[in-house]
């Protein structure tokens, strides 16, 4: 246990946490409270009158097929982003973990994408894959692929997943590399002597020993895919074509700010908030256990 710091004055500790507390209160709790209040209100089309409607906004939402579709889509996106990003990052980490010449350079370069802001990621990928401007799109068409994410919903979704997963690879890579390096070399050597070939060694020793890292990253990636993909979606597809790339977060924005339905938008953000609380709760429970194998 850490030794408790002793303060002479009772006010000093409060004064020290006050700036952080102020930020949390103003930028997190206050808007959250606003959202909760707003979710119980209904505004008319012109924003002139407001009525208190209890849970009507929520009930409307749950009856709405579009909302249900957005939930399914969001889960699918999250799953696809998490799995592709995690597996690719793990592959890179395993390769970078080998004693290679210039491995420091690779490692540094692999970390770069993390520093790129999500909207920039979106712009970057759209430049490469835009049906009329993108360089990769040209090759795709030359190979006979009918590539047009501006019209084809599935292709748009693929594009979002690709860009979002790409950005997250760096973060996952860092954790995987650290995880791999914390596995004692002698354990892998023992496995080699015990007759396990590299692939078997990976699946029976390395992978289980990485499982706490994998679980941690899975939760982080899902949260990322839920929320931080907003910038990518907004720059790349704006939720389109149609509603084929509208995720829960994007729907909050489009229904509220573009559609003007503030009550429903607020109710959606409250639901999202509850989801995040649950996810974080799960993560804390497991992180506290530390060893999961």
């Amino acid at each position: 246990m850490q030794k408790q710091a002793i303060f002479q004055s009772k006010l000093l500790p409060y004064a020290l946490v006050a700036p952080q507390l102020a930020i949390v209160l103003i930028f997190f709790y206050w808007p959250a409270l606003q959202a909760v209040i707003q979710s119980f209100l209904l505004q008319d089309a012109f924003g002139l009158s407001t009525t208190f409607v209890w849970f009507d906004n929520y009930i409307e939402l749950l009856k709405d097929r579009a909302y249900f579709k957005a939930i399914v889509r969001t889960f699918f996106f999250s799953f696809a982003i998490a799995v592709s990003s995690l597996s690719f990052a793990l592959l890179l980490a395993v390769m970078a973990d080998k004693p290679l010449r210039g491995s420091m350079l690779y490692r540094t370069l692999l970390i770069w994408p993390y520093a790129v802001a999500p909207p920039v990621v979106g712009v970057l990928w759209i430049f490469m894959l835009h049906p009329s401007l993108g360089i990769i799109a040209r090759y795709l068409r030359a190979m006979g692929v009918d590539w047009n994410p501006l019209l084809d919903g599935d292709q748009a979704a693929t594009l979002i997943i690709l860009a979002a997963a790409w950005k997250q690879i760096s973060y996952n890579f860092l954790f995987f590399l650290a995880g791999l390096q914390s596995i004692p070399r002698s354990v892998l050597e023992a496995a080699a002597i015990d007759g396990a070939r590299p692939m078997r060694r990976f699946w029976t020793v390395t992978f289980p020993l990485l499982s706490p890292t994998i679980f941690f990253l899975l939760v982080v990636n899902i949260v990322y895919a839920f929320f931080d993909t907003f910038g990518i979606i907004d720059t790349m597809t704006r939720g389109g074509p149609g509603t084929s790339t509208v995720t829960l977060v994007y729907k909050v924005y489009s229904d509220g700010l573009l559609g003007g339905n503030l009550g429903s938008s607020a109710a959606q953000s409250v639901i999202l908030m509850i989801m995040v609380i649950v996810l974080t709760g799960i993560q804390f429970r497991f992180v506290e256990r530390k060893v999961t194998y």
Partner: protein
Amino acid sequence: MANVTLRNVRKTYPGGFEAIKGVDVDVGDGQFCVLVGPSGCGKSTLLRMVAGLETITGGEIDIGGRIVNQIEPADRDIAMVFQNYALYPHMSVFNNMAYGLRNRGMKEDEVKSRVDEAARVLELTSMLERKPRQLSGGQRQRVAMGRAIVRQPKVFLFDEPLSNLDAKLRIAMRVEIRKLQRRLNTTSIYVTHDQLEAMTLADILVVMNGGQVEQVGNPLAIYEKPATTFVASFIGAPPMNLMSTRPDEIKSQLGTSAGEAILGIRPEDFVITDQTPAGGVALPLTVEAIERVGAETFIYGSREQEEQRIAATPGELPPGEIIVRIPGTEAPAIGAKIRVAAVRAKLHLFSADGRTRIEA
């Protein structure tokens, strides 16, 4: 059952550092070979080369009549016990021991009978379902041993397996390892920096220094006739007293014509006496410190002449000190002037550079 033969084995790292500078060792079938030396002497590297965990850049390693230089660790038919045990933390004790058998496609009932037998021998039967982190250091050590013996390999390799245990357990495990090896009669190579462990375990002792073999042989033979001053000071505790023969006093007593040479005398070969044995050596000493350990007493004395003690391992002892080991607890007072002597048969002579032994 296999011989292990090392022929002019070398290891040069890409940077040009030569870790192993040509080692020749021949371990007979069922023999227990101990590699001993100070840290950094290359003993662990050599063992890892036998295991296949380090590449061999020169020479040959032969296990059971097969050159294994290019063979994967898994196919060398060896088992290794690591210093930190290297147990699989996510597997139960049973699975730790069964892992190597299952990898080789052994049938599950055969796996079970082998693991159960090993667990019985090592008294681990009640712990088979536990995870390594639920075990004490000694128990983990036994699991590591179990993992090695279930495979029934041709050769056991031990890399300082006892150095993470406390002193008492280390002695107990040392005896256990020796008993087990005798019973299984499996060729073993054991690395340690502890000369006592080396002396008690070895059939063949290989003393290494700076990537080279200083001496190979039966431990007692090495103790009685160390080939170099390094071996003389490394094997035996407290270390052998080494001094220059330059002082005329000693030279005349020895009647040697060897010129400049190094004289070595083990602490226990001194007796406190006023007489000088014929052909032997007598030294006047001033007692500087006394260590009583119960069964015996160590006397640290300084020579009256300003003569430096030759330390084969630099910094091991302050210069000018002679250690005398006498039985019992009776000892002269500190500051007393005494005379110690050793008979001719107990003297060791080395060339001035310490690299060769001179037989008188």
